[in-house]
């Protein structure tokens, strides 16, 4: 149905997260239909990004500089360090505007299924950052999954004895969530973590 080149483009687009063969075809067609306004500018930008973007040597965030904008920012608090699984989580917390400290990107979570062990993650770098001093609290902002929380417990044990506070994100009812639609696990966890009502 397609030429080899288009087939290859569809294959590559299909590998992107959230896309499959069907949406890969749609995306390829959209690019080809808007060659001047979309395909060529995208090609140019992809080239620039491939050339310049790298992982921050301190936190693992993505940036065009060796040290990312967050690590360079003197206004950020040095005493709190938020540990996230990957850059998407860092961006999510930054979008919330609720955290003004520094970050550390682990690069994944311990996973029995995928065979990811502590050596595959940037845990050694995290411990070194904490040992270097200045950090008073490490916030483990990892997913509320078995792998995410297994990693959180592992990190909390690795950071024990370094003289810092280690905290984790709360689990419970999301804003706008209706109890009737919550899964049993979230509801049970929210009940377990209940707190006194103010006033």
């Amino acid at each position, binding site marked *: 149905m397609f030429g080899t080149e288009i087939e290859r483009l569809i294959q590559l687009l299909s590998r992107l997260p*959230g*896309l*499959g*063969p*069907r*949406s890969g075809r749609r995306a390829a067609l959209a690019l080809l239909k808007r060659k001047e306004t979309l395909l060529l500018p995208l090609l140019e930008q992809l080239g620039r990004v491939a050339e310049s973007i790298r992982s921050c040597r301190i936190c693992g965030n993505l940036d065009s500089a060796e040290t990312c904008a967050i690590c360079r920012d003197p206004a950020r608090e040095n005493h709190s360090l938020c540990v996230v699984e990957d850059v998407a989580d860092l961006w999510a917390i930054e979008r919330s505007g609720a955290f003004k400290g520094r970050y550390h990107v682990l690069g994944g979570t*311990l996973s*029995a*299924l995928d*065979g990811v*062990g502590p050596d595959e993650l940037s845990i050694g770098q995290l411990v070194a950052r904490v040992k270097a001093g200045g950090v008073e609290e490490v916030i483990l902002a990892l997913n*509320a*999954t*078995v*792998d995410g*929380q*297994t990693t959180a*417990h*592992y990190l*909390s*044990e690795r950071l024990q004895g370094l003289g810092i506070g280690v905290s984790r994100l709360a*689990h419970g009812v999301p804003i706008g969530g209706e109890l009737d639609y919550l*899964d*049993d*696990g*979230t509801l*049970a*966890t929210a009940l*377990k973590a209940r707190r006194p009502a103010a006033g």
Partner: protein
Amino acid sequence: MQWTDPGIVLSARRHGESAAIVELLTEAHGRHAGLVRGGAGKRLAAVLQPGNRVSATWRGRLPEHLGQLSLEPAGATAAGLLDAAGPLAGLASAVALLRVALPEREPHPRLFAAFGDLAAALAADADWPMAYVRFELLLLAELGFGLDLTRCAATGSTEDLTHVSPVSGRAVSAAAARAYRDRLLPLPAFLLGSQAASADAAAIADGLALTGHFLNRHALAPQARAEPAARRRFAARFSR
């Protein structure tokens, strides 16, 4: 073909745009995989955590096909353990072992029931480490490599059993073990049914070393499989 069976989620791996291939331990159909439509989405993310209980309906044209699973949540085991480091590590280890050691589609209803007991112990029982070691012992028995801890392999005595032969998997009494102590595996007292059930970390470590030795020897090494990392990390918690 179609069947409905209670199951325990062992793993979920994304497949295509929105589906997932989910592996379950079911009561009557053993370790069984199937395609779950929408399994990669947010709606099922909480349900598809390892250790959770589901009611599974499998449909396929032929029994040997992968087939499709539809799942109804029946118990959120994982959520109740997320805050507890030890029990969560125990859950991850048990699930990882079931995935690598159990053959596919071979029913093990006793193991299924034992997993339910283990999950309950992990959530509420202070003696959950003992429950975990007993679960591994049952796993060995279900795989056909049960240990004989009832009498001494050398003397036939049922008293003062302290070790296990790493070759035969049979208990050895203290008197018979004296000359071979360094070559035998210690047998923690809590694994002997008649003795009082209590164990410190060293006894749990001995129990895990015992089951680990036979799991590796009989269930993992013949399939060229290594001990799951989750189990290694779990065992390390007791050997510090």
